[in-house]
C-alpha cells in the first residue's frame, strides 16, 4: 500500500513538468517485479531442494557405468541403456505389482480404520478426550520404533499376535509372518496401516463434525437404522474427504520405505520388494546409482501418471 501511495505522489509531483526521457516501469510492472523478488527465496529453495535433485537423478539415470562419487558422474558417457534394463527387467514389474498391492491394501485399511475411529470419537462417549489422544498416538511415532514393536508382536515364535489368534481359535499353529511369502506382505501392512490411519481419522472427523445432528434425527424418524444412516447421511458427508485422504495416504504409502526395509528388507525372496526397496537395493547394496536413478525416474513417471489419471476426479469433487 505504501508503495502505491508513494508512486502516486511521485507521479503527481511530475504532472505538468518536462517529460523524462528515461524509461520508467509502470506500476503493475514494478508490483510484478516486487512479487518476483519476494518469491525469489522460495523459488531458490525449490530449485535447490526439488529441481536440482530431480535433475541429478535424471542425469545419473542417463549415465553408463557404476559410480558412487558424484564428481565422476559428468565423466560417464550418456546412454539410454539403464531405462532399457529397467523396463525389460521382470523384477521392475514384480516390484510395481507389490507396490500396487501394498498401496491399495494400506489405503483401504487406513480408510476403514480411520472411518471407524472417527465415528467412535464423534460419539459422546465417556473419556472421549482421552480416546482421541489414544487413537492419534500412532501418528507421531517414528516408523523405526513402530517397526520394532510390530516385529516383536508378530514374531513367529513368541509373538503376542499369534498368542491372541490361537487363544480365540483363529489359528492352530503359530504363523511365521515374515518368513512365509504368503503372509510377509500382510505382516508389513499392519504397521503401515497403524501408522497411516490417524491422518484419515482426523480428516474424516473434521467432515463428520460438520454433519448436523438433526440429519441423523430426521433419518431415525424416517425409520433408518445405523446402516441406512451411514449410507444416506454419513457417507455422502465424508466421501469427498475420504477421496482426498485416499490420495494423500496412497502417495505416502507408495513411497514408504522404512517399514518394509526395516522388517523384511524386501524378502522373503522378493515377496515384499516394493519399488522403494528395489531402488534402495540398487543404490546402496549393489552401488549401481545409474540403474537406481532410472528406476526412480520410472517410479516418478508412474506416480505422476496415476495422479494425472486421478486429477479429473479430484477436480470434480474439490474445484
Amino acid at each position, binding site marked *: 500500500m505504501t508503495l502505491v501511495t508513494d508512486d502516486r505522489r511521485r507521479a503527481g509531483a511530475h504532472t505538468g513538468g518536462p517529460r523524462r526521457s528515461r524509461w520508467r516501469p509502470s506500476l503493475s510492472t514494478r508490483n510484478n517485479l516486487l512479487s518476483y523478488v519476494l518469491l525469489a527465496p522460495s523459488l531458490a529453495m525449490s530449485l535447490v531442494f526439488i529441481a536440482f535433485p530431480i535433475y541429478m537423478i535424471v542425469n545419473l539415470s542417463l549415465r553408463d557405468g557404476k559410480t558412487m562419487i*558424484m564428481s565422476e558422474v559428468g565423466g560417464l558417457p550418456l546412454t539410454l541403456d539403464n531405462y532399457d534394463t529397467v523396463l525389460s527387467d521382470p523384477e521392475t514389474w514384480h516390484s510395481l505389482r507389490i507396490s500396487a498391492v501394498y498401496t491399495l491394501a494400506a489405503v483401504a485399511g487406513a480408510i476403514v480404520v480411520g472411518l471407524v475411529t472417527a465415528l467412535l470419537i464423534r460419539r459422546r462417549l465417556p473419556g472421549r478426550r482421552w480416546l482421541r489422544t489414544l487413537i492419534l498416538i500412532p501418528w507421531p511415532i517414528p516408523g523405526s520404533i513402530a517397526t520394532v514393536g510390530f516385529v516383536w508382536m508378530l514374531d*513367529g*515364535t513368541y509373538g503376542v499376535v499369534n498368542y491372541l489368534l490361537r487363544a480365540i481359535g483363529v489359528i492352530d499353529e503359530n504363523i*511365521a509372518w*515374515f*518368513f512365509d511369502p504368503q503372509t510377509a506382505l500382510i505382516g508389513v501392512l499392519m504397521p503401515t496401516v497403524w501408522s497411516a490411519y490417524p491422518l484419515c481419522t482426523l480428516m474424516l472427523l473434521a467432515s463428520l463434525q460438520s454433519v448436523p445432528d438433526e440429519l441423523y434425527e430426521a433419518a431415525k424418524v424416517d425409520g433408518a437404522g445405523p446402516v441406512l444412516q451411514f449410507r444416506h447421511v454419513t457417507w455422502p458427508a465424508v466421501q469427498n474427504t475420504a477421496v482426498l485422504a485416499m490420495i494423500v495416504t496412497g502417495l505416502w504409502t507408495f513411497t514408504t520405505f522404512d517399514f518394509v526395509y526395516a522388517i523384511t528388507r524386501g*524378502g522373503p*525372496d522378493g515377496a515384499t520388494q516394493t519399488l522403494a526397496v528395489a531402488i534402495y537395493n540398487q543404490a*546402496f547394496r*549393489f552401488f549401481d546409482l545409474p540403474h537406481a536413478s532410472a528406476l526412480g525416474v520410472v517410479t516418478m513417471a508412474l506416480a505422476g501418471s496415476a495422479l494425472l489419471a486421478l486429477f479429473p476426479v479430484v477436480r470434480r469433487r474439490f474445484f
Partner: protein
Amino acid sequence: MLDFPTWQANEPGHGEALRAIVEEFESRHEGVTVNMYPVSNEDFQNQIVTQLSAGDPPDIIASGNHFYAFAETGQLEPLNDRLEESGLLDEWEDFQQERVVDDEHLALTMHALTRLLYYNEDYLAAAGVDAPPTSPSELADTVEALAGSVEEGVSPWGATTTTHSNLFGEVTAFIVGMGSQWITDGEWSVTAPETVEAVELYRELARQAPPGLDGGGYRQLLADGRIAMSQDGNWVISTLDEVSPADVRPQLQVAPPPFENSVALVGTSLSIPAGISEERKDLVWDFIQIAAEPEFQGMWAGAIDAAPGRTGSVPPERVQERPELEVVAQTIGSAQPEFPDSANFRANFGEIETRIIDAMMRLLTTDAETVDVLTELESELSSITEP
C-alpha cells in the same frame, strides 16, 4: 576428535576390547579423543560407502565382509609403506592377504574367525547321541534324532531363516565344508554336484529351525535352551557366556564343524580413509598400531575366542582357562577362505550376496527343487559378473 563408527561397539567381547584400545590411544595422545559409536551391521556398509564416496569419511574405518565394498570405492589408503616401516607384516598371519587388493594392503586384519558346531549336550544325550557329529551324514542323522526327541518348544536345529546377510555365511560354510565353492577353477560352480549336495543338507536342516529368525534370534534361543544344535561363529561363545541362564550355559558345548573343511573368515580389519588430512591419517595409524600390539591383540582375540592377526598373541593361560580356544585354533588351522578366489566376486559382493540370500529363502519357503533354484541362481550370478 577421531570418528570411529563400528557395528561391534556394544557386542560382547568386541566392545570391551575396543574400549580398552580407545582408552589406551587417548592416554597416549593428549587432547585427542576417539568418538566410537555403534551402527547396526545391516546399515554399516551403506553408510560407510556413502561417506567414503562423498569424500566425508569417518576417521577410523572398521570392516568385516564390508571390506570389499569399501575397497571398491577406491577411497581406502594403501598401508604398504606404513606396514613395511613398522615391520608388522613379519609378525602377521597369512590371512592378511585377504585384505590385499592389486598388491595394496588396504586394511590390517585384527583376527580370523571360524564357524563351530554348538550343541546342547543334554538334548543330544536324550536323543541317544553320545558325541557331536563329525560328518555331514552324522549331522543329518543327529538332527533327525533330535527332532524326534526334543520337547515341544525346542527346535532341533537353529539357523537364520529370514532375509539377512547371515544366510550367505551359513550356506557358504556348508558348501566350503563339503568341498566346493561358489566359484571353482574360474567357473561358477553353483550347480556342481558337491554344491547341490551341500545346499540340500543346509536346506534340510534349516527347515527344522524356527522360522523367521535372524542370527540374534536363534542365538538367543540356543542360549535359552530352546535350540538343540546350530552352526555359528566362534564369537558366539562369549555371547553365550553373557546371555545364557546359569542353568543352561553348562550344557552348551562347542565342537569343530562336522565337515571335511572348515571356513576361515577374516574378522575385523582396520583401515585409513584416503579422504582425511595427513595429520589425521597419522593418528589413525597410531590407533591401528595400538590395536596391533600383542597385549591388545591377545585381549581382543581372547575375548571373542578368535585367532589373532599377530601370531601367538593369546597368552597360554587364557587358552588353559578357555578350552574352546583350542577348538577354534584347531578349526582355523585347517580352514579354507569363505570367499572364492575371484576379484569379480568380491567387487560385486553386495549384489551376489543378495541373489544368494533370495535363493536360499526360496529354498526355505517353497517346495522348488534345489537344483532348479541353484540353476536359476547360477544364471543370475552369471548375469552380474564373470566368475
